[in-house]
């Protein structure tokens, strides 16, 4: 086979899929290339599990199908899954000691859907423990090539966090260890690391992608989504990840699968972009503000119109989210009791002691904190004042969006108030981490689709993402907006310094 002009790892997912389909490169060669690349970058800490034998076997099978002219959309394309998705071929830990070595007897629906299209799994990607975190500093599982758990590193500056909880998913794509990866977003966990790592990511409407096989954090918020280096790549992946899973997930929307690439080429002329005043308060750093302003100006050049809107309860999204998500999580995590699977303490005196020791040993500090918060706000006497109140304000927040969408088609703003901070800078201050989620939480609470698009860099070269929030089921429009922006800019093509090219 002839070597392609561009390095395999610099190809977009779409281009790589095409090369594979045209048999210009084999799936086996592709897999070997990316496995070697992953190994060479183990210092970043992205992968938490790999198995060359498994991956190469999948690649060989893909090659056989390609030889027979298979029509899988992702035949032979290497991907990796955030370790929140359970897989039969690799252990699934959710970044937790509680699940070290856990082997699921079934695959997550999202994993199956991509495998059916011929994707080859390179391994599992590290994440904050049970998806709780904004910096990927909370994983309790050592990455491949590491002896103990260490923060995952941002390839743009190795001393900085990549964001979280899908930090490693973003890193793997930014460092070109993969053309794309899967992540999950509960309060911003796809959008924020995408922003911090200069890649493109999208969280679809709640219910679009099946949650079956996603280790549950907050049931009414969790959603799966792709991360890649372009909107087009995200659109392709998202199309295959989404779809009804009526037999297994009662919250899955009964809508036919969609081709989210169909509107990529649409013109943005006349598109009304709502800019919420609350997203540009005093807390936003100057660099972020400048990049977002510039991006909006770029959209105006493309024919869009800026419209001021208001989301007056934006800051309430912090207490509301940090009541609801921990409440649901505290219940979802009760199954980790050392009885049926996962960690069990080695020493205990009786059943009650077994439970306490198992859970105290198995869960990290952030997880414990959220379980405590969640248990408290659901407990007798506090439910009305906290949990019920939060769910009511959640509806008000959601209604605020609907009001705003009367005046605009899409809402835009920063993903986060700042760029990626230094490793360790906020690790002792959980509250600081929570407060930084302020711009991603509202769309999560309302269940709206949200994207992060690379929109610039700060003075030190750290990436800044632009957030696009659409109304329900408007993923195609968001991807269209992002795609047009990427045709006119090149932020998404830049390479981080911390990787080997």
């Amino acid at each position: 086979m002839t070597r392609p002009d561009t390095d395999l790892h610099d190809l977009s997912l779409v281009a790589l899929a095409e090369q594979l389909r045209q048999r210009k490169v084999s799936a086996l060669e592709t897999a070997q290339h990316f496995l070697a690349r992953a190994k060479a970058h183990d210092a970043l800490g992205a992968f938490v599990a790999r198995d060359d034998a498994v991956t190469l076997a999948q690649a060989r099978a893909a090659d056989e199908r390609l030889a027979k002219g298979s029509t899988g959309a992702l035949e032979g394309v290497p991907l990796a899954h955030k370790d929140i998705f359970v897989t039969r071929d690799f252990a699934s830990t959710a970044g937790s000691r509680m699940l070290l070595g856990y082997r699921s007897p079934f695959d997550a629906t999202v994993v199956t859907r991509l495998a059916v299209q011929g994707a080859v799994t390179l391994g599992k990607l590290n994440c904050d423990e049970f998806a709780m975190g904004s910096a990927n500093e909370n994983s309790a599982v050592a990455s491949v090539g590491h002896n103990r758990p260490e923060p995952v590193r941002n390839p743009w500056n190795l001393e900085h966090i990549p964001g979280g909880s899908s930090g490693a998913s973003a890193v793997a794509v930014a460092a070109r260890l993969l053309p794309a990866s899967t992540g999950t977003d509960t309060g911003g966990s796809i959008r924020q690391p995408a922003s911090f790592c200069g890649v493109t990511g999208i969280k679809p409407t709640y219910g679009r992608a099946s949650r079956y096989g996603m280790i549950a954090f907050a049931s009414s918020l969790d959603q799966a989504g792709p991360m890649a280096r372009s909107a087009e790549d995200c659109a392709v992946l998202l199309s295959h990840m989404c779809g009804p899973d009526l037999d297994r997930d009662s919250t899955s929307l009964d809508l036919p699968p969609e081709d989210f690439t169909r509107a990529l080429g649409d013109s943005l002329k006349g598109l009304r972009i709502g800019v919420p005043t609350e997203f540009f308060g005093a807390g936003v750093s100057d660099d972020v503000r400048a990049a977002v302003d510039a991006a909006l100006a770029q959209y105006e050049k493309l024919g869009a119109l800026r419209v001021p809107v208001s989301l007056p309860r934006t800051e309430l999204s912090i207490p509301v989210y940090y009541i609801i998500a921990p409440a649901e999580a505290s219940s979802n995590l009760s199954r980790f009791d050392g009885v049926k699977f996962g960690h069990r303490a080695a020493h205990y005196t009786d059943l009650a002691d077994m439970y306490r020791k198992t859970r105290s040993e198995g869960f990290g500090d952030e997880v414990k904190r959220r379980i405590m918060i969640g248990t408290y706000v659901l407990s007798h006497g506090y439910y009305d004042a906290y949990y019920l109140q939060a769910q009511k304000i959640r509806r008000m927040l959601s209604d605020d969006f609907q009001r705003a969408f009367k005046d605009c088609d899409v809402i835009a703003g920063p993903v986060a108030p700042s760029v990626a901070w230094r490793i360790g800078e906020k690790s002792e201050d959980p509250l600081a981490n929570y407060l930084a989620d302020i711009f991603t939480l509202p769309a999560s609470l309302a269940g709206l689709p949200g994207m992060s698009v690379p929109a610039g860099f700060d003075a030190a070269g750290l990436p800044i993402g632009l957030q696009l929030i659409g109304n329900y089921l408007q993923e195609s429009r968001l991807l269209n907006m992002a795609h047009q922006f990427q045709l006119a800019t090149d932020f998404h093509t830049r390479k981080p310094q911390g990787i080997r090219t």
Partner: protein
Amino acid sequence: MPCPAAGALERKGGIIPYRLLRNRPSVRLPACFDAGFPLKIAMSLTSSDISRIANLARLELDSEASERMLSQLNSFFDVVQQMRAINTTGIEPLEHPFATIRDMALRLREDTVSESNNREANQRSAPAVESGLFLVPKVIE
């Protein structure tokens, strides 16, 4: 609303001067803080709360961890207090995010059996199994 700029930090029933919070370098405060919105603490947790909650959640915290948890949770609930004051009379809680635009109803599946015995695979990650049963320390009733 006057901004309480001075005064010692009082916990129970008192007001945290927001300037104290503003001085913490790693914290970026939401806009409401800048507007001079005081945080009146209606209540704060005590160590017996921590102990009760930890027990409900089957978590074991030593005294140091307990204290740390207490202080972290209290800081957290300080931020949460503003939410409690919002008037939500007549507002229905949001059951399902999509319910804002469409009524969600529980899907019902036909009553058929399609799961067969998969015990071996299902118990592969079990900590203690004997004769197909999960073993646990004796349950005393």
